[in-house]
């Protein structure tokens, strides 16, 4: 703490100190003459500022309000902003994506348990199988593309990719929540000085 608690004076006058800080400061004030003098001066300044009366404006309240009402008709309030939706959209999308991939993994692993089921599904889904049968190069292109983008793990959703995904999604989710909290709550109380 600085000598004379110089910065505590304002906070004390403005009622911004904690109970403990008030006791500390008042103890100091009782013993320190320069601080007492400064305190008296600050009190007088506060009293002087009380003499400044608020202006009322040239328009009376009704006129002021009616002018605003007129302009309010022309300007409608904006609905909930896209920014607020995004705050909820990102974590929801992460959870949904994980859910979708997990379901895909369960379904494919169940199918693989049934002998010959793969062939039956491929044959019964002409929309899926035909493009690849007609254009054999398509499969190679898609797989290369996914490999190049680092997304090839999506086709092989196993325990390792699950762990990797949960780990990265958790980090993303917590970072997002931390950002959300800092953005939606007021800052901490008076800093120590």
């Amino acid at each position, binding site marked *: 703490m600085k000598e004379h608690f110089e910065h505590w004076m304002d906070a004390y006058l403005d009622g911004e100190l904690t109970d403990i800080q008030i006791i500390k400061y008042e103890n100091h004030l009782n013993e320190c003459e320069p601080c007492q003098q400064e305190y008296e001066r600050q009190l007088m300044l506060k009293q002087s500022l009380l003499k400044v009366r608020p202006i009322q404006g040239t328009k009376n309240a009704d006129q002021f*309000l009616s002018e605003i009402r007129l*302009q309010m008709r022309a300007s409608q309030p904006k609905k909930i902003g896209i920014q607020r939706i995004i705050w909820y959209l990102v974590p929801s999308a992460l959870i949904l994506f994980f859910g979708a991939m997990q379901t895909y993994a369960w379904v494919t692993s169940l199918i693989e348990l049934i002998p010959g089921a793969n062939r039956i599904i491929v044959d019964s889904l002409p929309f899926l199988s035909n493009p690849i049968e007609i254009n054999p190069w398509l499969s190679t292109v898609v797989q290369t593309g996914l490999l190049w983008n680092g997304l090839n793990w999506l086709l092989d959703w196993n325990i390792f990719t699950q762990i990797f995904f949960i780990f990265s999604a958790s980090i993303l989710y917590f970072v997002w929540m931390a950002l959300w909290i800092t953005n939606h709550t007021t800052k901490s109380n008076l800093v120590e000085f």
Partner: protein
Amino acid sequence: MFRDETTGKQLNEPEIIRKAQHGDKDAFCHLVLAYRVAVINIVYRMCANVQVSEDAAQIAFLRVWQHLAEYRHQTSFRAWLFRIAINAALDILRREKPVIALDQIEVSTGNSVDDDVVIKQQQEMIEKAMMKLPEASRIVLVLREFQQLSYQEIADALEIPIGTVMSRLNYARKNLLHALQPLQEEI
């Protein structure tokens, strides 16, 4: 106090704000009336021009109406409103740049013209001393002394750290004390 038309119940400020956020114009007008003088005075301390202050206050309230959905109830409504008012004032001041004539600062004592000449002179002196302060320090002082905002609310309104609020307030008070020394000796 604002009453709900359907239930007849008296509403507190957060409830009025919620109603206004749902498009209730009467609830919003209640907020305008509650904060009209405060907003006009904040802007007035920035430009010392009543006309500009009223215009800026009206623009600020319209912006508040348009963006009310974005207001989050965890933060102080006053701080949010004053931030919009200050930004509206700065926009107008940048556009119009009114000349601050310290000799023509309008003073309202609330008394009759013949009364309290001394008080009026003192008030003029204080107002002139305030107008000589740097804008950043002056606005912090105004929010603290005239609107009784907490340091946190000032920090939120001006989007600055609390430490900066404290240093600006300290600077403003020191300068004001120096400028008003003759007045304090009189008292």
